[in-house]
């Protein structure tokens, strides 16, 4: 009897809770939102959509248009930064290469709101960089400043190029170098072989990264929230509609945003599937070309240092600001009064810990649920043989296509009254709605990581263990678990970290009792307590970095060993 057989014996024990949770927290809220969007002032019909697409009041359409344009722009900008970086770090060897290539993923440790704040303090009209340049050159006004669409684009480019960088690097490592050599051998110039061989082989990675950046960007809330000014963005519009109590338009925009996201997902996925190549064994080892020549090396080193400075500036800014005494930084270019009080309160003020404790609690609870549901579903989808596997796969992945704003609105609509899924409780205004949102949002992360791990797990390994006399639990513990462990752990920690810094759903769902770190940062910011806000941001950054470093440490060795 293998694990699957064990799992399915008392079938109901697994499928009923799984179905209950997926139905209750993913399907039912989404369906309810769709249903409610069809009522306008109690009247059934497409009135809401008529207003949305009304050519005479284009404000809603404008939001959609801007969201799509910024998303396309973000994809282009991220690709433009990430792909060349990946190519350079994979193909060339120069002093400091390994350090630079590791630092290139730094933006990923910045939770959404923190990154945006750093950009605000650095590059906005009153930001340090433009004003430093202004002072240095004696200009009348700052030479440039970030706001509006361009600011959003730049923040997206900075945080999202990492997807292109990571995907392309992985794909390049996966390409058999012998294939490139074959092209050279057959007379292809570097450019010709890049165009005809490398690029087509990178397509799946590019599609994957495009998808991720586009979705993240459509979904992006914090950058427009801080920088948009007069510009309208769909995700932001939903928030304002809800704030203004116009739930009918909030749900309508939610449906439009979901429809766009899901349509894009399916479109890209079809393309992705069509172009996937399994690479045969490696013919030759990957050799990096060493950059020789003194000037070339100097140039590479200098470019690397500039890159590191630009990449690290946001992190350093937040760190610097965390030492600023609240209320002292007003018109000066750089803050003048520094203090360690912001951290001192850590030990004196018991309320200081509350948001951190809240975030940790909610992240633990939601991630535990993600693991329970995500790993089980992944196992059933990958190794199971029952009908409806595809449906289960789709159900679990739906939240991936849903922006955070959408998830939040769905939950508000569904649980503003008692339902069987909440055992009759009204969840809006309670502690529980936010952890549920985290759970729903991050379920696909755990599910994807787990199903990838299960897919790599050769069935014959479990069979071999059984053949050697191991009971199914022993086989699971000694063979299956060590092999899938690193992958599952990586997904789990990523979900945990994302929950810690979550902002989008939080701003719509939090109550005072469960206010997470991100909301505390925002409220300090609103009171111009820049130092306190930054101190929270630094603590959040530290938490995220520690968890990610740990994840890297635990999964690296074992994951690679289990792959080879």
């Amino acid at each position, binding site marked *: 009897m293998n694990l699957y057989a064990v799992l399915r014996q008392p079938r109901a024990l697994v499928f009923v809770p799984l179905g209950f949770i997926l139905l209750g927290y993913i399907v039912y809220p989404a369906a309810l939102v769709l249903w409610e969007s069809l009522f306008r002032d109690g009247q059934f019909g497409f009135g809401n959509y008529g207003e949305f697409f009304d050519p005479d009041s284009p404000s809603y359409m404008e939001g959609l248009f801007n969201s799509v344009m910024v998303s396309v722009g973000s994809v282009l900008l991220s690709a433009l930064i990430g792909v060349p970086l990946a190519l350079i770090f994979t193909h060339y060897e120069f002093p400091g290469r390994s350090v630079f290539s590791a630092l290139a993923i730094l933006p990923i440790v910045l939770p959404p709101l923190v990154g945006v704040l750093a950009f605000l303090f650095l590059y906005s009209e009153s930001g340090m960089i433009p004003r430093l340049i202004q002072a240095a050159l004696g200009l009348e006004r700052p030479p440039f400043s970030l706001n509006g669409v361009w600011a959003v684009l730049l923040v997206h480019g900075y945080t999202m190029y990492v997807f292109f960088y990571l995907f392309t690097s992985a794909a390049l490592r996966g390409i*058999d170098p*012998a*294939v490139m*050599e*074959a*092209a*050279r*051998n*057959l*007379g*292809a*110039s570097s450019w*010709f072989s890049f165009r*005809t*061989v490398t690029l*087509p*082989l990178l*397509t799946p990675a590019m599609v994957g990264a495009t998808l991720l950046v586009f979705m993240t960007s459509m979904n992006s809330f914090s950058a427009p929230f801080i920088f948009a000014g007069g510009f309208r963005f769909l995700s932001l519009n939903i928030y304002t509609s809800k704030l203004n109590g116009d739930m009918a338009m909030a749900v309508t925009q939610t449906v439009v945003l979901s429809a766009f996201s899901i349509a894009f997902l399916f479109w890209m996925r079809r393309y992705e599937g069509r*172009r996937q*190549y*399994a*690479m*045969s*064994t*490696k*013919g*030759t080892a990957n*050799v990096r070309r060493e950059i020789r020549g003194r000037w070339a090396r100097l140039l590479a080193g200098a470019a690397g240092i500039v890159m590191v400075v630009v990449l690290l500036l946001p992190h350093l800014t937040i760190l610097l600001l965390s030492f600023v005494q609240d209320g002292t930084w007003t018109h000066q270019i750089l803050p003048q009064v520094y203090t360690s009080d912001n951290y001192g309160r850590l030990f004196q003020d018991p309320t200081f810990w509350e948001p951190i404790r809240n975030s940790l609690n909610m992240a633990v609870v939601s991630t535990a649920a993600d693991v329970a549901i995500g790993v089980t579903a992944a196992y059933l989808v990958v190794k199971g043989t029952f009908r409806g596997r595809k449906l289960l796969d789709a159900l679990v992945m739906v939240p991936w296509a849903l922006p955070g704003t959408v998830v939040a609105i769905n939950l508000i609509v569904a649980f503003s009254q008692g339902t069987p899924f909440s055992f009759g409780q009204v969840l809006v205004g309670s502690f529980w709605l936010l952890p549920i949102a985290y759970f729903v949002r991050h379920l696909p992360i755990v599910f994807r990581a787990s199903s990838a791990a299960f897919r790599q797990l050769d069935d014959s390994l479990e069979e071999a263990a059984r053949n050697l006399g191991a009971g199914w639990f022993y086989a699971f513990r000694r063979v299956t678990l060590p092999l899938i462990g690193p992958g599952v752990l990586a997904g789990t920690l990523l979900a945990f970290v994302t929950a810690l810094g979550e902002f989008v759903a939080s701003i719509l769902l939090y109550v005072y009792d469960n206010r997470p770190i991100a909301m505390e940062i925002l409220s300090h910011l609103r009171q111009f307590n820049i130092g306190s806000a930054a101190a929270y941001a630094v603590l959040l950054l530290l938490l995220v970095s520690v968890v990610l470093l740990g994840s890297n440490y635990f999964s690296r060795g074992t994951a690679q060993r289990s792959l080879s």
Partner: protein
Amino acid sequence: MAQVTLNRLTKHFDDNPVVKGISLTVADGEFFSLLGPSGCGKTTILRMIAGFIFPTSGSVLFNDQDVTHVPANRRNTGMVFQNYALFPHMTVFENVAFGLRTRKVAAAETSDRVARALDLVGLAGLEQRPVPQLSGGQQQRVALARAVVIEPDLLLLDEPLSNLDAKLREETRDQIRELQTKLGITAIYVTHDQEEALAVSDRIAVMEEGECRQLDRPDAIYRRPANRFVAAFMGNMNLWEGVLKTEEGRPVFRHAGGLTVVLPAPRSSSAPRSSPALAEDAVPADVEATSADITAPTDGTAPADSDAPAVGPVHLALHPQAARLTDEDSEGTVSGVVVTRRYKGATVEFTVDAAGVSIQVVEHAEGPMAERQPGDAVRVCIPGDQAIILRD
């Protein structure tokens, strides 16, 4: 078509010498093999000839042209990779046509030449098949077609058969040789399989740790290994350590375990090599002629000491086919016990233990001694005139 000359070629990877001063010439139209265990530098040499890596010192010449630093894409060599390195996103046609595209050959001529190349390797009609859908053997032949369709000056083959199963390997091996002969292309073939090298090559360079240990025709390498390494690498030869003495005017090999082999008396000083077995071989004149343009490795195995074998520690190598099982207690035999018997169809392989010395013997399956079983007492006849004395 090209003659290839390597001139004191060396390659270091991070101060680690992988190729240590190789000099040799591959004649125009020759099928030349680089043979050796993994890590001996054979693939590194091939990659320097292809231009994927550049030598630390020394030079590579095609005919009289120095190509040492010419980029790989301007060398006009056709290479078949160990894993074929087919472009996974292209069809069979697109793969084979790739080299013609880079050469800007017109479309009509391209399809013509691709069709001919595929016909040559027996894959006509599979043009539109995506490469991943082909079997291993078919992929191998696409790789071959892709390499020859560009009419290269030089065909480079990097262990092209190692991913095929045993039966297909022999078939493809012969196909490659046939194709090379038909097209008259110079070919350099890298392999670690001595049988493969023996079967297809005009000449073989046996490599060890970046050095060429012997360069000769297949039969010469097999029958007269120049040193212990080559003897051990070329198959399951008997290889015994001992000393060479002169007793009653005759050279005698004495193994530490008590095995004694009386060698034939040395001939006149005209004997070409130190090995007694060499004296028996009538060396064909044409071999000497083709070997003339080889820069032989100066490792001391060359015909330096043609006088009476010097006395001292040596190794004795003997092909298992040269030893014979017998019941007669005559001169030149030792007594022993059969330890293992392996039936091979045409032959039977025995391992005999003779007072602690393990002797490999191959008998014809139809012969009188073929039915001996493990545990049987036998005598082994070791003909001194077939023994090869190795000092290196």
